[in-house]
């Protein structure tokens, strides 16, 4: 059977939803950050699929940049996590409710 772009898109969707679920459902900040990376991977997959479909390199280029951004964001996010851990002594998201109001 031929693997069409649609297969890739479904996979991408699946990974994206899983990642989204992780972001929304998990208490551990590390896990949340990792879920975000998962989501970005799903998006990259999407780009690549369409890039092949329309024979346009732009998709791949964009994916490069997405990876770049993901790296930067992971760095900053982990920095935040470190700061939070130092402040609270824990990475339990449910305990960090200073933004309540």
């Amino acid at each position, binding site marked *: 059977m031929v693997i069409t772009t649609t297969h890739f898109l479904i996979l991408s969707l699946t990974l994206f939803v899983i990642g989204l679920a992780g972001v929304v459902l998990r208490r551990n900040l590390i896990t949340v950050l990792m*879920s975000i990376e998962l989501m970005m*991977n799903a998006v*990259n*997959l999407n780009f690549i699929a369409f890039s092949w479909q329309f*024979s346009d390199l732009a998709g791949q280029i964009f994916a490069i940049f997405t990876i770049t951004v993901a790296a*930067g964001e992971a760095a*900053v996010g982990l920095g935040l996590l470190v700061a939070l851990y130092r402040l609270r002594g824990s990475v339990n998201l449910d305990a960090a409710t200073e933004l309540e109001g």
Partner: protein
Amino acid sequence: MNFLLAHGPAILFYLLAVVAVVGGLGVVTLRNPMYGAVALLTTFLAVAALFILRHAEFLAAVQIFVYGGGILVLFLFVIMLMNLQRLPQEERYVEGAPFALAVVVLLGVMLGVLLAAARFLGAGSNPAALTSVEGQVAGNTEAVAVSLYRNYLLPFEIASIFLLVAMIGAVVLARRD
């Protein structure tokens, strides 16, 4: 042999898809972030292989280097250096998790329905375009490089500045004072 040739890509695809999904589930489900990081790694690798299936070889390499060798390592460093405990049993999921799960599933279903309505005209129109430079066959890396340094130079430079800023930001945030 024919069977492999005929169904090889499909089998590969499904295999890799399953690995990726399992890995993803692992990230979201596992209590210990260390295990989660490992699961994430398998997902990265599976995705990288999937990139190759679609003639994005350079990107697959970048994926492994950056994601697997950089980001994941960073995660592992942080996990190990901070000695992050795994949270007790009842604290794995957030308050009101069922509701949020339902919402997410609903969204997923919605997108799925949308997706199912899409029709794509057969295979990719011109796979060769992904690997050629100015009409000459050169390989994906060269094609990407030429396109990147010619057409997308500005975003490239901005991306590097972005990385610089992110680095500084990370250092400042993590500073012990």
